[in-house]
């Protein structure tokens, strides 16, 4: 049985996607390869090799690599500690709900929180100064890649906690008991059983975190105000006309971002297919 209503809704959904998602994306690819006179050219992609744009890609990649790594390690350890047998039961619900909040507390408000805390006039900065520790004199800056990594960790770590709980729970206690019965030490269990089983989900989580940092815009915009060029802030500068550069450069930068994200997603799909091997239904 086919109802016209069903056809209507399916076609409507697909049409909205094609018109407002696929078409704008295709438009970017087209815009990036035609100059103002409508002639085909690769000069805008070649322009990405200029210092300004190349360094924005470099900064974005470094920031995403660093904050994803910090997020995976710290978030993984927190999730691991919370799921221990003798951890209090309330701890788990507190950590879960706080993580859900903090993972969604990104963008401009997050940037201002950290400016109020660790900015040049931040409360913690001043407090540490009264104790004789001048962090800015010691080389720290909130407005650097390191500072941005710290700020990004505030949403990356909770994101990791949320993603990683299910993977950790899939580690079956019987595997551990079997290893112990066969005389394995804790170290041997983790090296030979735990980590190999978790490795694909760890990598998949890392890739997701990488993507979330790579496409983040609000936090960086409010924090860097041009000090550090990131791809997202470069694109917005082109779009808002703050810098003198052709719109094609913005399109080429956007296509570059999409290419990075496609590669990231392909890698993630490969790895989660591997991870699925071990998640046998119990």
């Amino acid at each position: 049985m086919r109802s016209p209503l069903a056809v209507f809704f399916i076609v409507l959904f697909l049409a909205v996607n094609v018109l407002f998602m696929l078409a704008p994306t295709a438009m970017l690819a087209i815009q990036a390869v035609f100059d103002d006179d409508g002639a085909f050219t690769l000069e805008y992609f070649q322009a990405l090799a200029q210092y300004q744009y190349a360094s924005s890609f470099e900064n974005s990649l470094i920031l995403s690599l660093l904050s994803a790594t910090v997020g995976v390690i710290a978030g993984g350890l927190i999730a691991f500690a919370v799921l221990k047998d003798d951890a209090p039961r309330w701890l788990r619900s507190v950590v879960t709900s706080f993580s859900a909040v903090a993972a969604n507390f990104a963008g401009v408000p997050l940037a201002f929180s950290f400016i109020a805390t660790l900015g040049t006039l931040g409360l913690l900065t001043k407090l540490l100064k009264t104790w004789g520790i001048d962090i800015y004199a010691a080389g720290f800056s909130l407005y650097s890649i390191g500072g941005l990594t710290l700020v990004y960790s505030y949403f990356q770590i909770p994101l990791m906690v949320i993603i990683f709980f299910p993977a950790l729970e899939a580690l079956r206690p019987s595997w551990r008991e079997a290893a112990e019965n066969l005389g394995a030490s804790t170290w041997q269990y983790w090296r030979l059983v735990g980590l190999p089983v978790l490795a694909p989900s760890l990598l998949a989580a890392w890739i997701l975190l990488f993507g979330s940092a790579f496409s983040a815009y609000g936090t960086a915009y409010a924090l860097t105000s041009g000090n550090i060029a990131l791809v997202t802030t470069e694109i917005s500068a082109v779009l808002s006309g703050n810098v003198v550069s052709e719109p094609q450069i913005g399109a080429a930068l956007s296509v570059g971002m999409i290419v990075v994200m496609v590669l990231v997603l392909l890698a993630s799909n490969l790895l989660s297919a591997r991870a699925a091997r071990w998640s046998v239904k119990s």
Partner: protein
Amino acid sequence: MNRLGLGGWAILVLAAIFFITPLVMTATFSFWEGGDRYGFDSYRILLHSPKLFESAWLSIQLSLASVLALLVLLVPAMIFMNLYAPRLRPVFEFMATLPFVVPAIALVAGLSALFTGPEWLIGTPFYLVVPYFFLGLPYAYRAIDVGLKSIDLDTLTEAGQSLGASLGQIIRLVVLPSLRSAMLGSALLTLAVVFGEFTFANVLLFHTYAVYINEIGQHDPTEAAALSVASFLLTWAAMLGVLVLGGGRRPAVGGR
């Protein structure tokens, strides 16, 4: 034994310090009135600013409109796709993945390149509902997909039809009730995400709540801190809603 030793506690305490410090500092900073004086000044100023309420009201309207668009466009399409056109599933999966692959800033670049008119579409703030639909799409798709997989749609539909129910009755009385928690969960998540959304609104020059916070922050850090505290509490309220509504209820019918 799998015990939470000294190391485990150390990790948790360090994490607590890292996550609580900025909140406490920001809250304290929002009460700062210069010198050694602390008080409610920045909150008072904000409460008397009509722009705050205008921008917050706009963001609330946009959130509600985006949730509505998402539910009206996505839920029926997914139900019908599962019932009549399961072969379209890969297409739907692809559409739900695209917003991950095309970052917000790239989508807004594409939208501005493609649509330079008509004015009734791009001139109103409700144009933002278009990109916000895609912001919520991946989450809502996942949640509703899980919800649909947890019920045996084909069997339920056949059972309903053999009992003489029309398709509309089946969807209204059987399918939608079992999707309620998935729909509520994705609705609240979309509300929270759209309410604080900055990228699209900032580039397309609409005065939403997040754009307002950024404007305030350029000249008054204590007021910006006050607004940051307020948005943290708002995010928390929305997420508590997600946890309570999304986690508490099991589907009422079906199951394998």
